[in-house]
């Protein structure tokens, strides 16, 4: 069992791939890899690989926000990416991931949705972020949130003609004003670690995912994992997330 070995190592202060506990795997970012999308990005965390694509469409605004654009986040866990994923409609893990990524973006006020009105009450931009997992080797949430942010930062708004989209021609950049970074902090015994790989995820007791803005404000949190977290440890986990978020944000230009 690789997991038992990994657990043993962690008790001895080591990780199976030799990283420090507060060290990310190698991060690779490729922008604009899908021309058909208005914005896209591929993120690799070690062997984990995720593509986020942003499509812009036109739709009716919600009645209570008649001048605001609409954000939607959707994740697919295709069996392509992992023997643990099954075909069919998104399961609870895919739903949770997309909702946590959504909250990080939405609550940080990352996108100026109020600038995305075409005709009040009738037509606004709909921003669909689709997250496509290519290879699941752990820490999908951080990878997905990062790919989504970078895709948004590279998203261009198409030109309109008679309120219809002209695909392939662009008007302006999507107004993105904050950069939320998600950092999931794992816990095994008294050890805190970040960016768990697949083996480590299997032995994690709990995980706290924290989304942070550049002003260090917390915009979303989600506790995960099968065990509880001692109350006193929560602050430590948040501190670690804050610290690491700064490091990641440097990669996002």
């Amino acid at each position: 069992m690789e997991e038992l070995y990994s657990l043993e190592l962690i008790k001895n202060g080591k990780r199976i791939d030799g990283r420090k506990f507060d060290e990310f795997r190698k991060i690779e970012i490729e922008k604009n890899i899908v021309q058909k999308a208005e914005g896209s990005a591929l993120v690799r965390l070690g062997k984990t690989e995720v593509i986020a694509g942003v499509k812009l469409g036109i739709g009716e605004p919600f009645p209570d926000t008649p001048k605001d654009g609409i954000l939607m986040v959707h994740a697919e866990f295709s069996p392509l990416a992992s023997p643990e994923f099954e075909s069919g409609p998104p399961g609870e893990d895919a739903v949770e991931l997309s909702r946590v990524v959504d909250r990080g973006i939405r609550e940080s006020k990352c996108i100026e949705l109020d600038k995305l009105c075409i005709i009040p009450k009738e037509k606004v931009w709909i921003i669909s972020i689709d997250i496509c997992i290519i290879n699941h080797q752990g820490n999908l949430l951080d990878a997905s949130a990062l790919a989504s942010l970078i895709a948004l930062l590279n998203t261009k708004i198409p030109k309109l003609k008679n309120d219809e989209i002209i695909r392939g021609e662009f008007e302006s950049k999507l107004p993105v004003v904050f950069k939320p970074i998600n950092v999931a902090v794992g816990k095994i015994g008294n050890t805190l670690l970040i960016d768990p790989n697949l083996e480590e995820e299997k032995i994690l007791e709990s995980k706290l995912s924290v989304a942070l803005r550049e002003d260090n404000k917390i915009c979303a949190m989600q506790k995960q994992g099968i065990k509880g977290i001692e109350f006193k440890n929560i602050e430590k986990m948040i501190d670690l997330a804050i610290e690491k978020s700064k490091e990641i944000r440097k990669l996002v230009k």
Partner: protein
Amino acid sequence: MIKKGIKLIKNGKRIDGRLAKQLRDMEMKIDVISTADGSAKVKFGNTIAIASVRGPRALFPRHLQESQTGILRCKYAMAPFSVDERKSPAPNRRSIEISKVTRLALGPTTFLEDFPKTVIDVFIEIIQADGSTRVAGINASSIALTSAGVPMRDLVSACSVGKINGTLVVDLNGEEDNNSEADVAFAILPSKDEVTLLQMDGLLTKDELIELLNLAKDSCKKICELQKGVLREKYKSE
């Protein structure tokens, strides 16, 4: 999401007359469903949650069984008439996520490994939704599990906290929830001090968050007393 200009606190009082750190009137009742192994109804003001527990019982079809442990399944649902605009009874993405975090909030208190190949099912129905429905459901589930005789390490007590009009408050009602600057759903094993549910959205400084977590923890102690009270009542009368 925050709508501008909505005044939720006037003269130190919230729209329902409460102080910032005051819980709503709460009501708890157990064994409300005769066909269940355990059940409970919890009211947080106008929010009404019913939980029904079945199990531990053998799990079928067999290929779902775990040979080393029992499994816990939770299903959170809202009655179509529980909200302003009729809600379709089919599960949506929100209820799928809440069902999952509810399971993880309750799981750490059970001794599932003592019941291999079995399942415990927890069904939660929100009869009326006026904010804090998921935590109301967790509180109800916790006493329903106890009443069903499921061995547990501790109770699970849950509440919401948040920030409205710049003020940190406890137990958000629906109007507050819809217009908060931040809200947090929180559950804890009160005597173990282990947090099993923690979801936050909005914008908070770390200091505000830590203050809210302490507020949540204190409020859960109060809720725990109510839970214990209703359970004591039951076993006294038996």
